[in-house]
């Protein structure tokens, strides 16, 4: 019997991504954001999450996706090392239980600077789900 893991899924453009549910603190609606001048382009700003400050990170910039961002984002809030991290995503999907048998590491053809943020790929019906290695994102932000 294969084991399965649970993932919070979301979409950026038409791409499907997932994060281990255990890593996700909460999902929120679009929130007012204060920009951080001079910060790397993937840092979109700071969000007031009930008195805690979360750093909003756009995966579009981090993954070098060229297409136009939507008007408003949903927030997938994760715990970083000493700070809160909010991934800005277009659309929230279901929590999916995925079988390990469907898992594969990310193909080598994906550039290393993007592949480093991907734990791997789940082949699900009609789509491919990229699992985001949130620890790696946190690491990048703490370097």
């Amino acid at each position: 019997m294969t084991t399965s893991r649970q993932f919070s899924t979301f979409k950026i453009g038409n791409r499907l991504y997932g994060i281990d549910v255990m890593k996700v603190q909460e999902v929120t609606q679009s929130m007012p954001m204060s920009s951080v001048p001079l910060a790397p382009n993937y840092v979109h700003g700071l969000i007031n999450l009930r008195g805690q400050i979360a750093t909003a990170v756009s995966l579009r910039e981090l993954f070098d996706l060229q297409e136009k961002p939507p008007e408003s984002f949903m927030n997938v809030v994760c715990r970083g090392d000493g700070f809160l991290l909010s991934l800005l995503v277009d659309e929230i999907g279901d929590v999916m239980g995925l079988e390990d048998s469907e898992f594969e590491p990310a193909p080598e053809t994906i550039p290393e600077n993007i592949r480093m943020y991907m734990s791997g790929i789940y082949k699900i019906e009609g789509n491919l789900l990229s699992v985001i290695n949130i620890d790696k994102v946190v690491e990048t932000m703490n370097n």
Partner: protein
Amino acid sequence: MDDATINEFSAESEEIIQRVSSNLSKVEKGTAEPDVLDALYRDVHTLKGTSQLFGFLNLGRVAHAMEAALEPARRLKIKPSSEMLDSLYQCLDVLDQGNKSVQASKSDEPIGQVSEKIVSRLIEAVTHYFKSDFRVLPDQFGVSDVAPLEPIVAPVVAPVVAVPLPKAAGVSSPIVQPIAPVPSISNPSPSPKEIPLPKGNLEMSSDAPPSEPVLPTKIAPTGADTQTAQAGQESSTIRVQVSILDNLMNLVGEMVLVRNQVLQYSARNEDYQFLNLSQRLDLVTSELQGEVMKTRMQAIGNILTKFQRVVRDLAKDLGKKIELTLEGAETEIDKSLLEAIKDPLTHIIRNSCDHGVEPPADRKAAGKNEVGRVHVRSFHEGGQVIVEITDDGRGLDYQKLLKKAVEKQIITSEKAPTLSDREIGMLIFAPGFSTAATVSAVSGRGVGMDVVKTNIEKIGGVVELDSRFGKGMTIRLKIPLTLAIVPAILIASGGQPYAIPQVKLLELVRAENGEGDGPSIEYLQGKPVFRLRGTLLPLIDLREVLKLEGDNRHSNAFTNIAVLNADGKRFGLIVDEIRDTADIVVKPLGQVIKALNVYSGATIMGDGRVALILDVNGIAQKSNIFSQDSSSNTVSALVDEGRVKDSNAQEFLVFSLNSEGKFTVPLCLVNRLEEFPLDQVETAGNQRVVKYRDSVLPLISLNQFFGFATPQGSSSTDGNQEKTTVFVLTKRGRTYGIEVNQILDVLYIDSPIQDPLKESLGILGNLVLSDEIAVVVDILAIVSSITGEAKHTGEHGPAAKSKNPKVNDRAPARILVAEDTSFFRRQVIKVLESGGYQVTMTNDGREAFDTLEAQPDGFDLVLSDIEMPRMTGFELATAIRKNPVWSKLPVIALTTRFKESDREKGREVGFTRYLEKLKGEELLDCIEELLSNEGGKA
């Protein structure tokens, strides 16, 4: 030792005693986990250590005995015998007793007697128990008998004798009192029983005078009795985990935020009752915030008192005599900040002892008291805690510091002379700087003063330094009261709010834009500056720092400037809006944002938005304003004098370059103005030249020299220009064409030339025109640097060559100069030194005359300004001519007074020549002529 320290000690002891008690009962009941014996051992060990440290030797002795007793049990993992346990309990009671007595009277003497007895009983029990097993030798206890303890006993017992007994008992604990002639100890637990004290052991206290009766003592059970008896003195404090206080503080911080939000909401709301409630909430929250902050407050004396010891030991090591005095030890500060300043303070005090205070012999030689003083003063001021560490040692030797800084490549040798004393002083905080010639064990331990500064700044504090050479030094730490809640000012730029901690804010000023009458922003070499009460304030635009889009500054009538203090230096931050002041709660930022060095944190504002807190020092560093300091550009003594009234008004040629602001040169340097069609400009070698009259005129482009780029698409320069504008000057018989963008004006200026914000080649200083500031270009220096004439004197043609041969052959001629204006003084020095003369500079006629009188044969020539304080040039010349010794001494007047009547007067009073200022060439020729004449006569 002060009360606070003792209270801390006894509170901790109490905690330990309670823990030991509960652990002992666990051991006795057999419910103990295996590590309980270890815990027990550690606790009594700690108690022993701290007691002895604080000089409570009776407590220490009892704890020591307990430790010794527990040691074999712990090591061998054996349950102690019941006798041992009894004894340990009794010891514990005695400890408790002693501790209470310490609380009440700062002395543990009341348990002196009983502790001896109890210790010997314990030892007996232990030796008996382990001896029977033959597993432990008695001397492994550390105390095999009471005898080794005698040295400790001795000093303790003696004072007991000295104090009349009834008094001692009264002062200390009412429980320790004579009850019965039969010595007895009522054992509180587990089963109270009378224990006759072995006689032999009593005799062990051999130091006690035989006349003193053995104190019969009853030790009350630790239970209800003690508490009733002590009720009055029961401390009204409880010990709380710091983490709980931290949480409390955080929650209050959150509450402050909610309060702010509620207030903002209620302001928009018309519900009267809600308004009322929110105002009460406001009050209560503020009060709560204050009270919670108090829970974390500790007297700074808690750490200061420890320095007494540090200084004493240090002084001993260093062979110095140093006295540490404390002032304001009761000043309170947040516990976490107290921890944070402990190490920096230690370092500063060590530094003062090591580098500051001199050895006694040196001090005596300097006429100081042999005993050096280090004074630590702390007080509250403006919501901050100020800690000043002052020593009366040798102070900082600025010249030595400077040399060292250049050696260590902390600053460049070019920059060195431009630093003010204060800037030089701050060098000791630069990374990699250590002032001690030899790295001593005391302060040279890899951590320098830079760490002090970094650590203080990390907690939002500021380090300042005052030093007087030979007199001593003061280092001032300004520390916020608390970290979590910071008073700040809220500003906005680019539509987004930012917070600036009040600590960094000096004042807010407004500059008028456009044609208003008020002060406006001016530009110096493209950099904005603002005249703030007469001194120039360098400005930084926050929009520029943060690279924000747009610039709505000019659309407003005013520009808002926040005058900030970064490392003791002032600068103005241009912001779009100044909004409000607020207490903000600092939230940490992720590393990715912290690393930008522009933000020190973030906060949530009343409206729920996040505002970044600006890191003022970081911004100053990023904008490179550190090299320009408007408030303290006292490069040398010359500068201050440069600001005094200068009656030598003169004409200046004002022109523009590819940079904002205006530039100028003294008109007297300019021969004529010319325009040359660009197609006449040729290039010879890599030098642009133009045919001018009968010779070739080399062109020097000031834009090129200063590295001013040609603005793109600009029409003011090359683009549609077919001509180049040039002013022609003569230097040492050669002419040069200086290219500028446009000649703007010739102005007659009365104000003195101010020293430049930053000393750099080609800039003499700044000149205040009627409505703005112009940069005075040091055109002679520029020409020299471009032609490299300083090195190649041969290139100056026959005229130049013939000038100084005689001067060069003999010892350099000595020239005495009297000149009261720093600008001209520098000019004259430059000119004369380029001519190879030896120059003695004086500030006025009187000083010049005194100098001359002191060395009647010391000078070959005198050069004097006319208008000077104290003694004018005319008076000087008159005085010189009165003395026949100097009848032949050439005296040249160097002036801007060029009316014929003045010349006439000059000749009358005996000036040999009457020359115009700033004509270096003419001056050198004249001097050469006069000196060779004189040489011929002699």
